[in-house]
């Protein structure tokens, strides 16, 4: 079993203290940030025009997607490059059931729509279970590559199974029921689901299981010595993350009115990675802040230039090179410095 080891520079005591301090500071920062984002999200539809609301829906869905990724990366310490696959599975599960219900027309009942959304949960969980079963045997770079390979495999299945998934054309005409077609209503609907999911994610991160994951991230071997079933814990976490990604995907199809296999591809799997990194992977609120920044930039930068890849690539480059902890760690650094000076 290959195990990730880190150079231990600090003595155990100082390491522990600094870790605890860091944990407190981070929890301390994430709380207010999430609260502020939550309050702000309530008033987004009041902004002039329909477009901010549409961008808002996108931000909410992608926040959940990035948050699910951070369960694997930030807490468990593994880099998944296949999270898009579960996002896509969720999107396709919902889209396919919606299409089945609305065969021949674009109308769908509320119960049917909610059922279609719910279907995403077992489908993406099952997908994550199968993939995770193999994946949790690996760590580090092999984890990343195998997750990417499975993601591509699922992509090719969806891409080439014409009779069932519609192949690369995707599925069009997935409409939510009448009231939810108004972006404002759909926004609040999405907000409710994302809020519940965020609360669950928060609870998971604060639970003993959440701390087991952090322990796994920091030292797998020691975790095993303590008596934790590593693979079981990793698998459970992977399935949880896949399910949250699936829920995010489920909301995506009815929002865009269509789904396509690109949702499962490795470039799609890259976006939650970018978002988490921009926001700060060490913070619960990191992926949410990252999703906000990434999506708003994406929505408005393309109005002025076609060089969006260059723009986002440069931003990521700068963050990786100069602010490797993400935006929140900069703020956190400032705050703790102030606090430090006050304390002394």
């Amino acid at each position: 079993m290959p195990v990730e080891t880190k150079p231990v520079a600090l003595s155990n005591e100082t390491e522990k203290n600094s870790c605890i301090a860091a944990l407190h500071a981070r929890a301390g920062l994430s709380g207010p940030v999430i609260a502020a984002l939550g309050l702000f999200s309530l008033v987004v539809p009041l902004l002039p025009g329909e477009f901010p609301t549409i961008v808002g829906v996108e931000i909410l869905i992608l926040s959940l997607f990035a948050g699910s990724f951070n369960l694997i990366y930030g807490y468990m310490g593994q880099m998944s490059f296949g999270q898009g696959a579960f996002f896509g599975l969720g999107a396709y599960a919902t889209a396919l059931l919606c299409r089945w219900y609305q065969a021949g027309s674009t109308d769908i009942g509320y119960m049917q729509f909610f059922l279609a959304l719910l279907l995403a949960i077992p489908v993406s969980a099952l997908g994550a279970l199968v993939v995770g079963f193999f994946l949790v045997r690996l760590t580090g770079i092999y984890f990343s590559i195998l997750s990417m390979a499975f993601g591509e495999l699922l992509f090719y299945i969806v891409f080439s199974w014409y009779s069932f998934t519609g192949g690369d054309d995707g599925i069009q005409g997935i409409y939510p029921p009448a009231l939810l077609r108004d972006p404002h209503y759909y926004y609040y609907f999405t907000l409710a689901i994302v809020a519940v999911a965020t609360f669950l994610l928060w609870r998971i991160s604060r639970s003993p299981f959440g701390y087991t994951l952090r322990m796994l991230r920091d030292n797998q071997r020691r975790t095993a010595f303590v008596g934790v079933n590593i693979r079981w814990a990793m698998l459970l976490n992977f399935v949880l993350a896949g399910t949250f990604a699936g829920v995010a995907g489920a909301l995506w199809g009815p929002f865009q009115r269509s789904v396509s296999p690109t949702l499962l591809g490795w470039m799609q799997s890259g976006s939650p990675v970018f978002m988490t990194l921009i926001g700060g992977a060490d913070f619960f609120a990191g992926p949410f802040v990252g999703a906000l920044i990434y999506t708003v930039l994406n929505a408005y930068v393309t109005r002025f230039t076609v060089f969006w890849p260059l723009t986002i690539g440069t931003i990521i480059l700068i963050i990786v090179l100069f602010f490797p902890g993400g935006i929140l760690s900069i703020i956190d650094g400032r705050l703790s410095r102030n606090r430090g000076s006050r304390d002394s």
Partner: protein
Amino acid sequence: MGDSDREGSWKNTVDLMNRAVSRRDFIITSGAAGVMTMVPRFARAQSAEPYRIGVLLPTTGSGANYSERPIKILPLIAADINSRGGLLGKHPIELHFRDDQTKPDVGAREARSLILNEKVKTIIGTWSSSVAMAVQEIIHEHKVLMLTATSNSSKIVNENYTPYCFMFGPTSGMQSRATVVAVTRLIKEKGWKKYATLGLDYEWGRDAQRVFVENLKKASPETELMKELWAKLGETDFTSYISAVMALKPNFLFGAIAGKDNETFLQQAKGAGLFKGIAYPGVFLPVTELMQQAKTLPRGIIGINRCPFFANMDKPLMQKYVKLYKDKFGKEEFPDDFACMYADALNALDQGATKAGTVETEAVRKSLTGATIETCQGKLPIRDCNNQLDCPSYLGEVVDVPEYPFPIFNPKTMIVVQGHDVWVPTCDEVRALQKKRS
């Protein structure tokens, strides 16, 4: 020898410079997404509200190669209309360009952004059919017109039909049936008996191959299909497929390959000697490819394209397009199929608005459906049950001619298959395919 070499190299230098200039131009028009207005200043003073149009084409990924000329010609056509004051002589056209990155969800988002932020009333584009169909849902909901030509899945006008979307080129189904018409003729002429197919393993490739095989079976039941080969999208090495085809020794090969993969295949197949013993009819060769692959293209293969300028130089509108394009980008530059079709789309919008007497979307849409419009391929009707332009497909043998620095289809033997001969025969059948929309 030496002299001709020097002359050649000088010509190359000029070529290169021209190319550099036109490239810079392209970056200027597309690099800054924003607005591409070409409104004469005097016209602006007395004009009413501008008519905003979104141009949604990929400049990222493998589709980008085919976006260049449409992006270059559209501002010229817009400027031409604006020199008359714009639509109805008072609504100058404003073009807003966006990159759809060949991704359906990006296309959908950009379409929404164009509609809600830039207040466009029409969207022109896109390249990939999957993107077009994602955008179709958005424009239907917002009641915005969509004029498409490059993305030509039959679903756009049949299964996913919306009255707001107009198709200005032959669909993939029409193209495949047109190929069957030509191939049936060749089968009789040359006594071909068996064939193989090589398709790209994605929706367009599958669809094109299926329609071809089905229709050939009807037209010429005794011709035997030996094997179907499928290559993945984005294949870089066709050698294994080429040797597999050559081992089969069919009389002809039908290829459903498009884009850069098509070029890769042609280049590798030519080097491997595939065309020495096996005919290759029906390869999709838009003018873009004829120009870009001027040197490498194997001569004698039979290609199909959608709107070649060289077949329509007798039509006034085509003369105008070619002149506009050459004046702006240099003598060696010609608009390709896609540029001409999109130019037609913009001109059709102008005619629709004139006929309706207003630029209101509903009125323009109704005036265009079933109308006969002036295009660079002559006067053509728009089918009233699915907004499909009755446009022909062109099949011909690739030959060199003295007039152009690149090969064209042999004008003497070129087959022009009319749109109404190959589309879904009756409007009742079309309506049976179309799904209900609320």
